[in-house]
Every structure is written in C-alpha cells, then in structure tokens.
C-alpha cells in the first residue's frame, strides 16, 4: 500500500509545474479561461506543442506514436497539474480519439493520425450530442450514407463544443437506419471541419463560453476516415468512456486555494474571515472532499496501471468531483458575500471575479459527459449489479 507519489514521480511533478509556469503567458491563461478550458485557440496551441514535444500530452502512449510508455498515474498527474495551473486539460484527440484509434483503428489510421495527435498538431472536436440525443446517445440521427468511395453526411449536431477552434470532428453518425436496436447502427468517423457543407453556428452558454450547433449538408467524407468497422461506433464510444471518463479537479482546486487565501487575508470585525467558526467548517469540509476526490481520481489510474478497466469507479469519480465543483463555488460565493456578484472588470471585484465566473461554469459540470443521474444509474447497475 502506498498513497503518495514515488520520489521520481514527485520530481517529475515539479518538473511539469515549473515548465508550465515558465511557458505560461497571460494571453494563454486568459484564452483558456475565456474558452471554458477547451483546447484549440492559438495561444493554447503554442504551449501545448511544447508540452507535447516532451511527450506529456500522451505520456502513456507507446514511444513509436509519440508517447513515453509512462504509467497512468503520471498521465493523471500531468492533467491535474495542467488544470491547476490554468492550462487546457481536456483534449479530445489525445485523450478520447487517440486511445480509440490505438485500440480499434487500422494500421493506416494509426500512422496517419497518432503522430499528429501526440505532437499537439491537430485537435478534434467531440461530435456526439444531437438535439434529440443527449443522455441517450443511441438516438442519434445524423445520416451517413455509403456512396461507394465516400460517405455522404446530412444532419445536425448540438452542443459540439470545440468545433469552431478544432481541426477535425470526432463524429458519431448513423450508418444503419433500420436496425431494431438503434445503437447497432452507429459508426465513428473523422471529418475535416473545413469540409464543404458544414455550417458551424455559435451557441453561447450562460458562462459566456461558446459551444456550437453544427449542420451537415451533403458533406463528403472519404472512406478511409471511418474508424474501425462500420456500425460498431457505439461500442467504441462506450469503451472509450470506460477508459477515459474522469474529471481532474485541478482548476477548482486552484479556486479553492484562492478562496482560502482570501478568507485568511480579509479582515471583517477585526478578525480574519478564516477565524469564523462557520467559515472554518465550510472550508475544512471542502478540503476533505478535495482529498476524497484525489483518492478517487488516482484510483482510476491505479486500476489502469494494474491492467484493469475502471468499472463504476469512473462514474463515481466524475460525479463526486463535478458535484464538488458546485459546493466549492457555492461556499466561495457565500464567503465573498455581496462582493461575490462583482464581475472581473468591475471596481472592487475580488479574486478577479473568478468565483462568480466559476460559479456559473460549475452548473454544467454535472450535466456534460453524462449527467449525475446517468452516472448513478451506472454505479448501481454496473457497480452493484442492479437490474437495468
């Protein structure tokens, strides 16, 4: 039993942090925040290419594809530190598409895509959700008709977040329209987002970020862009979730540390807020829950490093961590009181308006990538064998 990093891992962690801090620019930090921590903007691409050059974007990949053959613990640690230090930390290509290609893609596809992904050269946008297919992805309708040498795509995607700054769409489409079980007619393909016939329209979230509606009208996709076999897409998609569902708390852990600093520095009634019993209890409780999340998070890496596949544990970590983000921002707003409402560019704003901003963004964390309700179903059904 061992709950700490090894000496080497600790040293590596320091190296990562130092490198990030050295290479971070205010422009990159602002871009990341403005875009809702997604990757693909020009500033983010600059620093990520440097990080990728060190193998840190895809540390667990084989060296031949640009990885380090490193452990999952190391990989998880890097992502946590990237989030904590204000970098984008979720990469569709490196963390979802890449592993799927490694596992299910043809040799040609591996050669074509993996080096470009691991070097940080290309980014994908997730192409799952549709207006009528949210929690229930099997209901997706975007049609891909087999036209011999290509597929012809028609339909709509909704809330496909990175499409306006990513290069390719990691797209789930319907290739069989008459199967009795709808999930059996789904395929995965890689689509150039600059393809003729694709219209990307912005949707603005309450947090001020952009997400997108994407309309496909007679878009031609070459056959070689099909991932794995036709009609097996739902299986790939679900398998990827098993491997990749996780939520690094990093950015919110950073916010918590800033709230703690604020409570210690802010004097009301002649003593720091941090000496008020109610505030102490609230912050102590959050620090406990952050520790709980750390254990749940690295448990996933531990399971993978042992050669296993996280079962319900990913759902548990995702749910616990994302619900915690809302408790952190709630307590932050409580502690800031009337100051909590002031926006970044307002006189008297505290912590650069960060608490207010994160308070807004935390709302969606328990909804995207599988709602808390779906996750609890999974925990009960997969983790405890209760009936579907």
């Amino acid at each position, binding site marked *: 039993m061992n709950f700490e990093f090894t000496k080497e891992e600790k040293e590596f962690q320091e190296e990562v942090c130092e490198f990030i801090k050295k290479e971070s620019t205010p422009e990159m930090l602002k871009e990341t925040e403005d875009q809702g921590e997604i990757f693909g903007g020009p500033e983010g691409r600059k620093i990520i290419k440097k990080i990728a050059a060190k193998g840190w974007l895809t540390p667990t990949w084989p060296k031949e594809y640009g990885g380090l053959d490193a452990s999952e613990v190391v990989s998880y640690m890097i992502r946590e530190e990237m989030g904590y230090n204000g970098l984008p930390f979720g990469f569709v290509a490196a963390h979802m598409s890449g592993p799927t290609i490694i596992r299910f893609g043809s040799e040609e596809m591996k050669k074509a895509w993996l080096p470009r992904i691991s070097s940080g050269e290309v980014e994908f946008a997730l192409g799952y959700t549709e207006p009528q297919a949210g929690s229930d992805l099997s209901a997706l309708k975007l049609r891909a008709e087999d036209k011999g040498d290509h597929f012809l795509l028609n339909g709509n995607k909704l809330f496909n977040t990175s499409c306006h700054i990513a290069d390719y769409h990691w797209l789930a489409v319907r290739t069989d329209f008459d199967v009795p079980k709808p999930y059996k007619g789904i395929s995965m393909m890689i689509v150039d987002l600059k393809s003729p016939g694709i219209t990307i329209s912005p949707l603005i979230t309450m947090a001020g970020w952009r997400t997108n509606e994407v309309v496909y009208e007679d878009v031609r996709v070459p056959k070689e862009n099909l991932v794995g076999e036709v009609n097996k897409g739902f299986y790939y998609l679900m398998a990827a979730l098993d491997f990749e569902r996780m939520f690094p708390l990093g950015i919110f852990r950073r916010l918590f540390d800033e709230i703690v600093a604020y409570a210690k520095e802010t004097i009301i009634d002649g003593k720091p807020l941090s000496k008020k019993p109610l505030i102490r209890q609230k912050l102590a409780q959050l620090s406990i829950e952050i520790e709980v999340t750390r254990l749940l998070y690295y448990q996933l890496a531990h399971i993978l490093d042992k050669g296993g596949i996280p079962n319900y544990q990913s759902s548990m970590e995702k749910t616990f961590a994302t619900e915690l983000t809302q408790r952190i921002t709630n307590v932050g707003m409580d502690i800031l009181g009337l100051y909590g409402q002031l926006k970044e560019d*307002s006189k008297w704003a505290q912590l650069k308006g960060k608490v207010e901003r994160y308070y807004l963004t935390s709302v969606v964390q328990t909804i995207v990538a599988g709602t808390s309700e779906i996750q609890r179903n999974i925990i009960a059904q997969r983790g405890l064998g209760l009936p579907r």
Partner: protein
Amino acid sequence: MDYDFNEEQELLKNAAKGFLSKECKPLFVREMEEDTKGITDELWQKMAELGWMGLMFPEQCGGVGGSYLDLIVLLTEMGYSCLPGPFFSTVVLAGTTIMESENEEMKQKLLPEIAEGKMFVTLALTETTAGYSPDMISVKAQKDGNDFIINGTKLFVPDAHIANQIICVARTKEGEKKEDGITLFLVDANSKGIEVTSLKTFAGDKMGEVVFNNVNVSNTNVLGEIDKGWSIIKKVLQKASIGKCAEMVGGGQRALELVLEQATEREQFGVKVGSFQAVQHHCANILTYLDTSRLMTRQAAWRISEGLPCEREVSMTKAWVSDSCRNLIALSHQSVGGTGFMEEHDLQLYFRRTKAAGVYFGDADYHREIVADAIGL
C-alpha cells in the same frame, strides 16, 4: 387561518402577470442587463400609470393606499418576469424609508414624485464591510452649523447611477450601542462631492459605489430623528428581505415551469424525460422548496403588513427562501440538462438573480444567527 390572497390581490396578481408578460419579455430583460440605464422611460411610465410605484403610499401622498401585502403580490410577479430597473430601490427601499420616517413634509414632497414615476431614489446603506448590522455604518456626517458634512464610501448602492436622490445612512455620533448615533439624510445625487461609480454585477442589476467627499446636507434633509435612524432601517430591512423573498418565489415558479416544459416534451430512451423517477424526485423537491418558500413568504409578509411582531418570522423566511430557492434552481438546471446552460434559455436569468437575492439583506447564515437570538439561544 386563511392562506389565500383576497380577491383584489388576485386581480392585482393577474393584471401584473398579464402586463409583464407583454412588457417585460425575457429578451427585454437581457437588453436591460446590457443597457447603461437598465430601464426604459416607457415601461417606467406605464408602471407608474398602473399605480405600481404608489401602491403602498397613502392616498394623500399620491398613492393607492395599498398594503405591504399588496406590494408582495406585485414583487412576486416582478420576480416571475425578472423585471429590471429601479423599482425595488426606489419604491421598496427608499419609499419604505420615507414612509417609516414619518416626516410628513418629506412624504408630501417625495412620495407623489415617486408615485408618478418622476423620481428615482435609492438607499445608500452598506459599505466596504458589506454587512447589514449597525456597527458596519462608518460613513460620517459631521454637524456644521445647521448643516451636516458627509464623508465616506458607500458600496453596493442599488441603481445609484440613475438616482435623483440618495438616502445616506450615516453615523452622527459614536455611542456604546452601535445602533445609536445613526442618522438618515436625503442627499441630492447632484450635490457637490458625490461621485458614483457603476459596478458590473453577475445578476445584471445595477449597483454603484457612492463616494461622499465633504458633501453638504441641510438638517432639514434628515429623515426621522437625528441619531435614531437605525430603528427605521431595521423596518426597511425587514420589508426589503421579504420583498426579495417574494421575487425569489416568483422566479422559482417560473423555473419550475421551465423544467416542466422540458420534462413533458423532451424524450430520451424512448420515454418522456419527466417519467424518470430521478427527474420526478427532482421535480417533487423543486415543488417542495417552492411551496414552502411561498408559504413562509406569505406569512412573514402578512405579519409585517398587519404590524405584528415579525423579527423571528422575517429572518426564518429570508434564511429558508434564500437556501431553498438556490437549491430549487440547481435542481432545475440538473433536470433541464444541457439546454438550460445556454444563454438563450431563461433558466440562467433566474440562476443569477436568485443567487443575488439570497445575499441581499443578509444571507441564510446571517439570518439564522438572528433566529438563534430570537428563539433565546
């Protein structure tokens, strides 16, 4: 026992609902958030013509002679429609302060102007300590012959940017008891030495920093008695707290409707979203938060309106409604899913306003502490 509004109140409610559904659509609400003024003259005048500004002012002051409970009916509907603008600051905060000051001259001078929609007044109460207890009043008003000289900074002053008059809560005497020595001054917003800076808030309402730099005020501009202003502010805070509760209840009602629209229309896994037990239980909890918030708000408003002792009930209500409506909105977001996170979905309006309303005039922790006193702990 009678939990219901009377017939006139029901009429008022329906009229307000009808009017606001036409004049204060969600798009307008969003526009006003971006607008520097935060209200249109047109809407303000229409509301004045409906008698809303003067609803609870006496008839001899140009008002309708309604009760505080009538005002609560209105505020609930304003919360339902997210009405922007200075109604709360001018009517609930300033109007109540003027009424409670029992200064007939001031009432005759100011209330008709407010009732006719010709004047914006606000209350400059909180400071950088951002709290509502009397010991947090440090802005000083120094006697200088028949005048007073005010110095200091007021923060989070609602609608300060458009106020014609500002009621400044200032300290005129350092006493042992912190609630002694506080005086209310009506200050012309154009007075020399006043500087207003607008603050951008996440709820989109307009707040200002108001700096008083040697501002000269005549002693005829004192509201209530010198040094005894806090007793007025206490009553104002009670009415304002329950006013915010009414807004939250109205907003909660709308949030529930938005959830039900989604739950009864959207399908996932081949059935209506609203047929999932998890969604049903979210909805049941939303309704429980809403009903209990409404009942508590009505009871407190009724007690205030009847002049009954109400300190305990007011703080119980503000604590309960602030927490409950925040929970209600969180469950609403969770039930609506991704769509509800979009700017164009109205739920986000209620998310932001409910959070702000929960903090104004004391959050749940603050009011629970008052309740603890009230129940003898």
